[in-house]
């Protein structure tokens, strides 16, 4: 039997993902015991899995280097890859929003030239160009995006919001919600066909775990 390969996101999704896999009966002891290995194998169920940066998970799955991936919807939207998105795993829930200073509330349209600071240029562009039909200037940042409107780098930001506390403490408000975000199970388009039985068993198993 071929190995099925699963790509997991390094970071806040890791522990929850591994727990779920264990509940499905996949042996993750190699991961639990060894910290230096890059690929972990469960010989019994012929499954391999590895951890990569979240933004890389869709790439591995699109090329078929991994058959299955667990990754946040934010990453999927930003990467825009050809994948099957088969299951909402529910955890790591948050929202992708447009935020800005309180005085902009309800006046987003009146702003002529918008500079948008974000870690997610593609999502921001997609939202402003297709939903709002506006041209914008994207300013790509790599962290602390909330700072940008405070120091005049941008008018608004597009970012993930979990509780909204950071925004509030910096005097920013949510101007619009772009999408609800949570962890998703994605599958390579070819693997879904060539290994449909085993992959469907995993999907069904996960569905039950998540409902239970």
């Amino acid at each position, binding site marked *: 039997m071929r190995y099925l390969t699963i790509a997991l996101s390094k970071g806040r999704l890791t522990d929850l993902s591994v727990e779920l896999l264990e509940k499905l009966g996949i042996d993750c002891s190699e991961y639990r015991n060894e910290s230096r290995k890059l690929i972990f194998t469960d010989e019994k169920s012929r499954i391999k899995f590895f951890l990569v940066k979240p933004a890389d998970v869709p790439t591995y799955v*699109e090329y078929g280097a991994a058959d299955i991936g667990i990754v946040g919807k934010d990453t999927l939207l930003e990467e825009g890859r050809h*994948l099957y998105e088969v299951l909402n795993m529910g955890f790591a829930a948050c929202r992708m929003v447009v935020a800005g200073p309180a005085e902009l509330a309800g006046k987003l349209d009146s702003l002529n030239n918008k500079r948008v600071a974000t870690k997610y240029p593609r999502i921001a562009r997609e939202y402003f160009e297709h939903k709002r039909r506006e041209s914008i200037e994207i300013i790509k940042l790599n962290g602390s995006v909330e700072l940008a409107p405070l120091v005049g780098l941008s008018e608004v930001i597009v970012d993930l919001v979990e509780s909204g506390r950071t925004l509030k403490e910096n005097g920013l408000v949510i101007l619009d919600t772009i999408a609800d975000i949570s962890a*998703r199970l994605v599958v390579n388009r070819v693997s879904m*066909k*060539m290994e449909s039985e085993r992959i469907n068993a995993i999907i069904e198993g996960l569905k039950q775990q998540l409902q239970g």
Partner: protein
Amino acid sequence: MSKWKIYTPDGVQDILFEDCCMKRSLEQKLRALFRSCGFNEVETPSIEFYDVFASDEGAMPQEDMFKFFDQQGRILVLRPDITVPVARITATKYREAAYPVRISYIGNVYRYNDYGGGKQNEFTQAGVEVLGISTPESDAEVIAVAIQALKASGLESFQVDIGQVEFFNGLMEETGLSEKDTAQVRTLIDHKDYVGLDEFLNRSEIRDDLKKLISGLPGFFGSVDVIEKAEAFELNKRSRDALENIRQVLNILEDYGLGQYVSVDLGMLRGLSYDTGIIFRGFTYGVGFPILTGGRYDKLVGEFGKECPATGFSLGVNMILMALQRQKIEMEKPGTDSLVCYAGQGRKTAIGLCAELRNQGLVVELDIAGSTAEEAKKYAAAKNIGGVIRIVDEDTVEIHYIQSEEVIRVKISELLKR
């Protein structure tokens, strides 16, 4: 100024000795197969007018095409596919031909960011088109040729999924959704995005039974049972006809004895914008991209001035080679049988001997570096050449076998009789 001269641009590749040999031999097998099925090959220009690919039916996103201008300022493109040029040819140059017209091609196409090409910007497509006929037999023939092409390439485990875009179109007609919403549902189903699909359906006013069917559509793939599963729902004629069409095609493929290679996917929708009926995709292990795509396109030829139903497929030659390599399937490799070397007076004899051996079908190199026997053997070993033939005199040669290190002396007349 010459900063880039030692590099190749993104998404293109040099194809070197072994790969090139494998590619040519695969292309040869495909060409022979297509010919034996009665297809006639055409070669279309690499450069076409942008307008050819910008028509309503064949529209390809303009950002995916390589564009430039001719001297009159008209927009040109490097052809992003060969199906559309074949449609142009059929409508303009084979208008009066006896239908069906069977056309095949093998050529390079150029696209930015292409998924179908395995993310390469230049790749080779081989394919066939059957024009002027819309019978299920013609759909089945094209699928059968596609399967035979995969078999001829040496692949053993692969699968071809068949869908029918009219099934989905019938469903959408029944729901009365706007064109924009339909496009969204199409993308959601094609991405098997259950989450987004359910969100969408919850927001829209559609009959409950249809909602149930549409929300399950991404999972409607597998054996023929899928068709029955869909038929259990209340469908309009358009959708029903589409299912019946798939069934007919599957039955014909059974007659070809190729039933084991095909399965059904009612949730396969995207394909190309000009699809009008049966569509299909081929998959194998080792490459995460489809290795072939095809389908019916009854409206496309009409864009060029003659209404004419048509169907066809193209397969990605580079991707099949990648799959063969990853699946460790042996392919023909370039090899040289002998190196003929000589000293002084032997040149004429050596040239004559080379010609004779080549006539017998051997691959023979003539030493042009004036090597000694030792140098020649070293070179032969490095190049994996089977043996060195050293001219001794007009009638005699010395054969040095590289692997066994054996040396024998024979008459040329005897050598040629072997």
